[in-house]
């Protein structure tokens, strides 16, 4: 199943890149299409952030990930480089768990 996801995902993403090189320009130039293509990553990534932070399988939970994301938010506000934002979140969650302060 994992190989199916990897290969089907990759094939589709390549196809999307290829399609752009052959379809007539005016289709993707339409304002509605342009807006949707621009907004899709924003809605999907935000949904992923929410699920990765608050969901455990099908239940909503509050655990060490929430303060970790808060710490990451502060880091992002100060324009911290990507790798540091990720490290700050990991260290926050790991420390809270190590000291038994959060699940």
């Amino acid at each position, binding site marked *: 199943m994992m190989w199916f*996801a990897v290969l089907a995902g*990759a094939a589709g993403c390549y196809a999307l*890149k290829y399609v752009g090189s052959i379809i007539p320009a005016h289709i993707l130039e339409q304002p509605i299409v342009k807006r949707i293509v621009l907004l899709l990553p924003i809605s999907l990534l935000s949904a992923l952030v929410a699920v990765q932070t608050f969901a455990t399988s*099908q239940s909503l939970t509050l655990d060490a990930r929430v303060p970790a994301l808060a710490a990451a938010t502060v880091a992002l506000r100060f324009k911290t480089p990507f790798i540091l934002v990720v490290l700050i979140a990991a260290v926050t969650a790991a420390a809270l768990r*190590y000291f038994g302060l959060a699940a």
Partner: protein
Amino acid sequence: MNTTQTEWNLARRQIVGNAASIGFAVAMYGVSFGALGTTAGLSIPQTMALSLLMFTGASQFTLVSTLASGGTALTAVIASWLMGTRNAAYSMRMTPILKTSGPGRLVAVQLTIDESTAMGLAQDEEAFEGRASRLAFWATGLSVYLLWNLATFIGAVSVSAIGDPKSFGLDAAIAAGLFALVWPQIKSRTDLSVAFGGALIALALTPVVPPGVPVLAAAIVAIIVGWVTGRKLS
């Protein structure tokens, strides 16, 4: 040696230098992606296959984090496709500039991502008969491809070596990494409403539908808002 040649040599050096530094910056994401891939339950070859074959970061992150949260392979695949739609727009924009055909076109298509397109379009299209735009695209695309895959491997191998990912806070690192990807994309009030709308729909649906589906449902927000705001423009 004439002036144009000297100018081109200078421009060329600058473009290649910029391409290399973008590659190194992107490698930071690559390490995180490799780590996330193996944390999500993919093997090292599967994680590598994504970086080699899919080669579009946001789609790769989407696919593995959907799998990590218990989503089915199908929902993960569809989510990665939706995330990859913007690459179609990129290659449409780049194709007339690159003037490629045959195998060259097939390689250029694979290298068409955020960074290579942005660098290609950042050059004056007329400069040096289009050579500056083409060099910027190819140099950035190749440098990112090389370093992204190298970094993925380093990340994947180092996580396989450690034990329980949760005790290292890797689940929180995934959330923060995704957050850092979307953060710079939010440039207006509309973008912000789409971000909150997507997040809220996903959370509201989490208890009632299978994992993975809530994230796909969030695409509806982008489609509705894109439709309404796009229609005002047309």
